[in-house]
């Protein structure tokens, strides 16, 4: 199930969400885009975190439990410590897919030239603004598309450097 939903192209998520929106008579808005993208990246997160947690040796669970900790103690205090680098990688993977995704938000978030003031207004995502502004005939607008691309890349670089830094710092206690 998770594997299937991972394989679905994001445009399908977008159009599916759009058809649901039409059914309920909703208009494009930031909130709906957020929900769609969340649905898009959840399978990615589940799958990659699942792989991380599978690598934890069984003895860790036994050791934790036999000290008299509860399951949630073991999960949050031991497993998480062991897995945090992998979890961060999973989040980064999902983040990269989410921020660069244009198709899923095309019909759900829409596009606007204004800065949204509430979750119910349409908003411009960076990939979409690259797409729309680049197809404009006015050169100044086209330049803004390049600016968007730079901003997008900078965000991704910052996040991945930060992720690497954090997971490296957390890594040294791993067994």
């Amino acid at each position, binding site marked *: 199930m998770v594997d299937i939903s991972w394989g679905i192209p994001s445009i399908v998520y977008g159009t599916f969400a759009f058809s649901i929106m039409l059914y309920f008579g909703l208009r494009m808005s930031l909130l709906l885009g957020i929900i769609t993208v969340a649905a898009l990246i959840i399978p990615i997160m589940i799958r990659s975190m699942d792989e991380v947690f599978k690598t934890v040796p069984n003895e860790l*669970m*036994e*050791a934790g*439990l036999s*000290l*008299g*900790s*509860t399951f949630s103690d073991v999960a949050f205090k031991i497993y998480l410590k062991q897995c945090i680098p992998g979890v961060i990688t999973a989040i980064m993977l999902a983040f990269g897919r989410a921020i660069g995704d244009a198709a899923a938000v095309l019909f759900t978030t829409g596009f606007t030239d204004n800065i949204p003031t509430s979750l119910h207004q349409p908003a411009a995502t960076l990939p979409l603004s690259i797409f729309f502004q680049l197809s404009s005939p006015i050169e100044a607008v086209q330049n803004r598309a390049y600016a968007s691309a730079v901003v997008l890349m900078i965000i991704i670089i910052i996040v991945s450097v930060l992720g690497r830094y954090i997971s490296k710092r957390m890594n040294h206690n791993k067994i």
Partner: protein
Amino acid sequence: MENVKIEVENFNLHIKNQHILKNINCCIPEKKITVIMGYSGCGKTTLLKSMNRLTDLYNKVAITGNIYLNNKNIYDKDIEITELRRKMGLMSQRPSSLPMSIFNNVAYGLKISGRKKKISMGLRIEHYLKQVNLWDEVKDRLHEPANSLSIGQQQRLCLARGLAVDPELILADEPTSALDPISSAAIENKFMDLKNSYTIVVVTHTLRQAQRIADNIIFMNAGEIIEQSNAKDFFTNPKHELSQKFISGILA
């Protein structure tokens, strides 16, 4: 008559239709070292894990019979499992130090058992590390990750962590099988010291080790208890043919 700490009564355990433990009846006396011996795969570890209900983790386990700890059935529905497990420190074949610093490994045990006072934490940790003769080796690097220690040191660290929750019993599953002779001797000596205040159950298939430390022997084969007696009788005068064969391994 010595006090009985754990009593196993008509205990059967199936995993996926395999009959792992067959009608086990045995007693673990208080403040003695009981050694469970037998060939590989005869159910020693499973019996040990049944005692602190780690077998609950396995899939498709069916259990009949009772295990009494201090005359209280641990398979009763109203038993508090975390409380039960806290009473039993477990040492596994390979040390399973937690992914934290040396200090926090022991502190974890203390925190879990509800003793959170920061002031005394350092002193307590020193106390437990000294108890397993690890303090002098690690006192300068308490905040380094536990996996930077050698396997033998980690095993002692696990023992310290187990002691920190203040258990009544120590269950040790081949605690020295991954260790060099010197580290093994350190663990064995520790057991000899600790048996004055704790009940210790050790699983081993090293006969010499059993000879050195055991007060009582439980000999198992293919999921059944073949013989249980005190160590002296067992080694000098084994009653069952299988145990005779097993012991003759020493002489061979």
